[in-house]
């Protein structure tokens, strides 16, 4: 019986370590997707002046944004329905992002479509630069901490396993 509990403790702690490591990776990947989305919105506003709803619809069909559930939710709205509320609710539910990422995304959602194209482009440029910094930080965090989380998880698991035995 003790062997079973010991194995369970090893597995649980190791899985926790891997989960925290994956969380860092997922944050970085999501920030990469958001950064790509912001760049695409800038290009479309600059060259086609497309409506936000249409841009989000087109983005929702791109697998690169598959993990950004708020994009898909906004794309499901009918024409002339306000996407701001759905965006903000979707961002709040988006997993793996930290508070600063969410605040940035909420602010992006609030400003989208609210000004002329010059205003939109300036705002997207500012958001892009802030997102780049946060993504860089997420990348560094993953590089520094992911291995540590996995090792600590495994070591804690082994220690717990030994204690249980």
């Amino acid at each position, binding site marked *: 019986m003790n062997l079973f509990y010991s194995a369970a403790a090893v597995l649980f702690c190791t899985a926790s370590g891997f989960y925290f490591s994956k969380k860092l990776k997922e944050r970085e990947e999501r920030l990469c997707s958001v950064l790509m989305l912001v760049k695409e919105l800038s290009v479309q506003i600059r060259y086609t002046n497309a409506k*936000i709803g249409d841009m989000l619809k087109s983005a929702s069909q791109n697998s690169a944004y598959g993990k950004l559930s708020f994009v898909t939710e906004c794309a499901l709205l009918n024409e*002339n329905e306000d996407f701001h509320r759905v965006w903000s609710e979707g961002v709040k539910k988006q997993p793996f992002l930290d508070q600063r990422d969410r605040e940035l995304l909420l602010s992006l959602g609030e400003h989208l479509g609210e000004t*002329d194209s010059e205003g939109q482009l300036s705002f997207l440029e500012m958001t892009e630069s802030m997102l780049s910094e946060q993504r860089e930080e997420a990348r560094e965090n993953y590089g520094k901490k992911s291995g540590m989380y996995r090792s600590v998880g495994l070591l804690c698991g082994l220690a717990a396993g030994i204690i249980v035995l």
Partner: protein
Amino acid sequence: MITAKVGGDSGVLSYLGGIGEAVCRSGYRLSDIYEIRIRAGRGVVLETSRGRVLLDVTVRTEDVGECIKSFCDHSLHSFEKELREGFITLKGGHRAGFCGTAVIKNGKLGGVKDISSINIRMAREVIGAGESLRDTVLKEDFRGLLICGKPMSGKTTVLRDLCRIIGDRHKLVLIDGRGEIAAVYGGVPQNNVGAFTDILNGYDKVKGIEIATRTLSPEYIACDEITGFGDCEKLCLNSGVKMIFTLHSGSIEQAKNTETVKSGAISSIAFLGGRVGQVTERAVIE
């Protein structure tokens, strides 16, 4: 037989939120409403076939702002030109004009802020409204027709039906600068403007006429609300393209004095008066 249909069904009310609900509650059908006037701090007025009706609803400044955002599909940047020009064409071809404070950039009108009132003119597709001019426009020696009249006399309605009549037989290019004749939505005209009609939607009239004559080989060109083009009428005239234009004018005499008529491109003038779309006076220009 003349039949009228309001463009884009009741969709126009969905832009208006609570105001739209108040219009619904008023008991008036959309087909009876010509205009919906929304004024911040005041009420909503309906111009109907039975007269003017004041709805018991007070409009807040935020409501007006929300309506404008809704007209723009929450993408103001996509409607900069329209916002600058003071109107937006809605789905169904309805036109929302608005008043506010001018924003001047580099000495020119750069936009409008603090929008205080909106006037929605309901688009109507009246099949048969142009029948009285059918023979005129299909005649062999026809050069051009100028449909003139006062505001709200039905010029656009008649032009739209003439497009249907001509466009079912001949190659017609319709320059729909404000998108209210064909009411193109997603590339598809929502009003019947003829099977052989090509639509230059949102084009500047002068540029549109130039593109049409040079690249689309039309037999007819139709265009709403001209103000005198100079070289463009000559371009049409020299290329043998027949023209149909509308013009704001208080009388047929005023219309005769316009550059367009003087250019020789027009062979007939029809003046609309009386009930909407009714031709009350005609003139043949030799």
